[in-house]
């Protein structure tokens, strides 16, 4: 499946880009994150991240679909 992955904060620094198109066999967001973590050498553990799919927060058991926009969100620090 093809995903558009968005990166923010430490993950953006780690990936060296804002976003990327990714081809993956995983419909499970945790497994997708693990794959990207290995590829880019992210240090953030999945448990510290929130998942967002197509611009909305989603739980980690949300099943991904082809063409989804997926973001793994580090702890926020606005304000």
């Amino acid at each position, binding site marked *: 499946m093809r995903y558009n992955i968005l990166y*923010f*904060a430490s993950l953006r620094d780690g990936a060296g880009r804002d976003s990327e198109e990714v081809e993956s066999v995983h419909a499970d967001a945790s497994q997708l994150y693990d794959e990207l973590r290995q590829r880019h050498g992210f240090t953030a553990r999945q448990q510290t991240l929130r998942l*967002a799919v197509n611009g*909305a927060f989603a739980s980690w058991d949300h099943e991904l679909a082809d063409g989804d926009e997926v*973001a793994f969100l580090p702890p926020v620090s*606005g*304000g």
Partner: protein
Amino acid sequence: MSRFRLSDQPIDAATLARALADASAGACVTFEGWVRNENAGRLVQRLDYQAYVPLAQTEGERILAEARQRFALVDTACVHRIGALAIGDLAVWVGVSAAHRDAAFAACRYIIDEVKQRVPIWKNEHYAGGESGWLHPDNTPVK
């Protein structure tokens, strides 16, 4: 009428506060978050805010709607800066008007607390010496 807004331009607090006015409002409480020159013992020189804009917008509006539901408000609004900020810059503004001050204080506090916890905005502090780092909601460094 979007009440939560991300802005890459300076925030005009006076204009925002005036827009909350109403003949039935007796109290207006505002919170302003300013960029400090120090965090956790390190000298801060400037910072950058990054946001996941569409989700930040949705989540910010949701927080304001929650505040309107929980407290007896006349009006409320919130603006958060994104981009590069200097020491002393206004980073976030929250304003609440209500008939009475109890509701105005409680709602203003609720909104800024929730914004800091939930809205996908990230702060990157640049320190004296050239280092920089992303922060957690409690302003401790990530890793």
